Structures are given as structure tokens and as C-alpha cells.
């Protein structure tokens, strides 16, 4: 089976994941192996088969429109890496 060629820089950027040069080499090789294995799926005859997203079809799930207590500001910010004045601190995104 052919090992697909993966543009690892492109995929890592989509995933917002900074990889080291060593990781890029390792992952490109390992993912090539996994993709070669996954290629097996091409043998399956799926003509006319509907896709399954969930094992049991549940749709239009409505909840009563009743207010319920949510997280307090204190709870919501408890795990923030940087917070000030009830807000999460982030670097400037607009000049």
C-alpha cells in the first residue's frame, strides 16, 4: 500500500499546534502508517449507505425555557491563567 504524503506543517497549523522538527518527522511517519492502514476502508462497499453520526437517532431535543443557576463569576474565573476585574486577561488582539 502507498504511504500518503502528509503536509505536516499545514495540518499542524490548522490544529494550532507548534511542533518541533523532530516531532514533525515522527508524526509524519507514524501518521503515514496509520493512514496506510485506514486505507482498508476503501475496500468496503458503501454505495447507497447512509452515514451514521450517532448510534441512536435523537433529534430536535428541546429543553424547557426556564432560567437555571449557572456558574458564578468566581467559579468561572477560578481556573483562568490570568484574570483581572472579573475578566480573563489576554494579549491585545486589535491594534
Amino acid at each position, binding site marked *: 500500500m502507498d504511504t500518503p504524503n*502528509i503536509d*505536516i506543517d*499545514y*495540518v*499542524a497549523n*490548522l*490544529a*494550532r*499546534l*507548534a*511542533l*518541533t522538527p523532530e*516531532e514533525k518527522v515522527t*508524526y509524519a511517519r*507514524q*501518521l503515514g*502508517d*496509520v*493512514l496506510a*492502514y*485506514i*486505507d*482498508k*476502508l*476503501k*475496500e*468496503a462497499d*458503501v454505495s447507497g*449507505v*447512509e*452515514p*451514521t*453520526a*450517532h*448510534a*441512536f437517532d*435523537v433529534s430536535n*431535543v428541546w*429543553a424547557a425555557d426556564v432560567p437555571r443557576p449557572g*456558574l458564578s463569576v468566581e*467559579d*468561572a474565573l*477560578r*481556573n*483562568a*491563567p*490570568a484574570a483581572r476585574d472579573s475578566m*480573563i486577561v*489576554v*494579549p491585545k*488582539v486589535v491594534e
Partner: protein
Amino acid sequence: MSSALVFQTAAALSDQLGARKVSAVELAQACLAQVRATDDRIHAFLSVDEADILAQAGAADARRAAGQARGPLDGVPVGLKDVIAVRGQPLTCGSRMLEKFVSPYDATAAIGLKNAGAVLFGRANMDEFAMGSSTENSAFQTTSNPWDVTRIPGGSSGGSAAAVAAGQVPVSLGSDTGGSIRQPAALCGIVGLKPTYGLISRYGLVAYASSLDQIGPFAHTVEDAALVLQAIAGHDVNDSTSFRTEIPDYRAELAKRRGPWRLGVPKEYFGAGLAPEVRASVEKAIAWYRAQGCEIREVSLPHTEYAVAAYYIIATAEASSNLARFDGIRYTHRSPKATDAVDIYHHSRAEGFGSEVKRRIILGTYVLSSGYYDAYYGRAQKVRTLIRQDFLNAFREVDALLTPTSPTVAFKKGEKTANPLEMYLADIFTISLNLAGLPGVSVPCGFSPEGLPIGLQIVGRPFQEADLLAIAHAYEQAHDFHTKHPVL
């Protein structure tokens, strides 16, 4: 010398609590002592909040003294995989990304246990974000198999399984996306149940692959698994995929449903790659059912060979999307290296995630990326339909299926870490059930010549856990495998 309370079933402990032969505080202390005596070798728990555990046990004793005991689990310790939220407790998911995270709310399953009076006991080790089959992907420690500490306990819920097998807690909760409850249960010689998708709310279960994830119990016996299931099963408005279905009294049904059953043996599960000692034990279990008057029928699940491939597309695609929330902004590790917002994402994720998580995010991102979606994700979802139809066809003829849980006994630490694909194939018999949404239970069915546990997987119809557990219970009670414990 461990306490006489250690290795007892939750049902037996419950009786003693009810008869006031033991207090919940004494029981909690016995469990804490067993953790202290064994966890330097087993490494099942990432953290154990002793003061909180004793306070919960004290409250259970006070309820009982006031005549307000809440039921069979009141005062019984339950270990939790560190992926299920408990307010005020850590929730690391085995990841540096969440090393300092403290849960601001309770998972619905945790609320179920609290309402039943259970003592929520410790945070059990796991493969990072539940990705793995050996618990070697934890960022913090590798859990040992209590039967042989040079071997893995299975994964990803290896800490929850090892804690029960080592007598540290009578029961625990894990989560199962491709076999992460059943496989470690088999390798540790205990019972592990993955319920039907939708039976238990996923609210407060940190998501790996949302269409496959399900919480379930580990226990020494099927009866104990039924007791825990009772406390956590049922519809929840906080999980729109949880199912509205009648919840029977699972323990009471064990004795009522006696068979004989029509049981299917899928021929695709007994091919090459199945270790001879596993095959021998499972075939012996099948012969036992036949001897009890059950009709044993060979069935075919022809799309089995595609299950692992379909799973690793669907699961990684969902993971790449679910794990996008760990971005270094709101509640996770934030890299000090980063200078702008996008840089925060790249570096925080690079520093916070371990190698298997990165590998799966990359794979999931790739299969969803423009130009590849139809070839991979779209096709995998269609194959998922075929796999599900295979099972539904089989269930027209039989009440349940009998298979091995894992193709081998517990492997050595480090044996498969260099080859991800080989590790993925450890889940070959468990993965299809997640794709089809079906319930499955692993029960101990023997030991290899070197004394390592072997598990029998029983697969049931959707939402028919009462039948599934009754079939497992009948086998278990006629054998003594579940009464054997490792020498620690």
C-alpha cells in the same frame, strides 16, 4: 496486613454498613490504608483527598444514625477516573494541560453517586484525555497491573481498574470510547461495564469523542456493577444525547432473568491474532453456557475488519474538534513563551499536550481537512452504519454475543509504546460496540498459564442492560474467577 474489609464486594460491605457492623468512616479508613500500603507500586490514583473522603464517610454515618440512609451505596467508596468532574476536586484528565484545574461543577454521574450516598474516593490515573490502551500515556505516572507490576493494567481507565483489582476501593467509574472500561477490566481480572450510548449522561465527562464516549462501572462482581449503574443511569436535560428509557431495578433483575438464552459467537472474533490461552478460556465459557441449555449459534459480523480503521477516523476527528477548547485562554495551561493570541494557542497546546494526544489531533485534523473529508470521515461514517447493521442483524437471531474482550493478556510496560498502530489493535474486539452504541460487559473467565487474568465480553441489545447483566451474572456465580485477588 490489609484489613478484612479490603477486597469485599460493595454488596457485602453495604450489608455490614446496614447492620452497623462497620461504619463508613472505618471502611474509608481501610481503603485509605490499602492505598497507602500498595499505591507506591500500583500508582492507581493521581490524588486522594483524605480529609474530604473522611468528611463524606462521616456524613454517611450520621445519615444512617438518623435513620436516613439513602440505599445500598450509602457509605461505600467509589473511585473516579480523573476525567469525571467533581466540584472542588482536581480534573487533570492525565494531562499537563489541566494540571492545576479544579472542577467548578459536578458531572451528572457524580451527582448520582452523591445522591446515593456513595463516598467519592480519589482521582484515578488514565491515559491522557482517555487516549490509549495501557495508561502509559498519562502525563504523571504509569499504573501497574496488580497481577504483575511489570505489566500494564490496560487503558485508558487503567487507574480505575487497578484500584478495584488491588482492593483500594470496592468499585469505581471509568469511561469507554473504544474499550477503555472493558479492556482494563479484562486485563485486571474484574468486571467492567460499558452501558448503551445514551444510558448515562456525559455531562461533566471531559469529551474525547462525543458520539462514542460513555461512563460505566468497574467492580468485583456483576451485582456490584448493577448497584453502581443504578445510581448513575437515566435521562439528563444537560446531555441532549442521553436517552429517555425505563430504568429497571438492575440488581433485582439479576435473579429474575434466568435464560436459557440464545447466544451468538461471531466467527470474525476468533481469527488470527487471538492468543491461544484467551481463545481456550473463552471457548470454555461458551461451552459452559451450552451445557446450561443455551442455544449457541455461530453468527457473522462481516464488517468487523473495518472497525479499527473507522474508529480511528471518527474518534480522532471528534477529538480534534473537542480538544480545540484547550487553547490556553480560559482555563488551561498558558505558555509563557507566547507573545500574541494565536501564539498562545500554538505554544500552550504544544507544551500542554503529550505525544499521543498530539498524534490524534493531527490525524483528526487531517481527515477533516478540505479535500479529504469525503474519503475519510464521510466513508468512515458509512462504514459505521454497516457495522451497526451487522449487530442488529445478529440480534434478530440471538439475545447476546460472546467474544474475547482483549486479544491478549496484559502486555509488558513499554512493549507497544513505539508503535501506535499496534497499540490501536489492542481494542479490536471492543471498538465495534462503541461505533454501534451497544452495551458490553467484560467478566473474568480464566487465567493464563503465567497467572494473568482473561476476560469474556458479552454484548447486549441496546438499553437491555438488565438482560446483559443477568447473562454475565449467571456465568460469574457458577465460577470462582471473580473471587481471586492478586498478592500485593
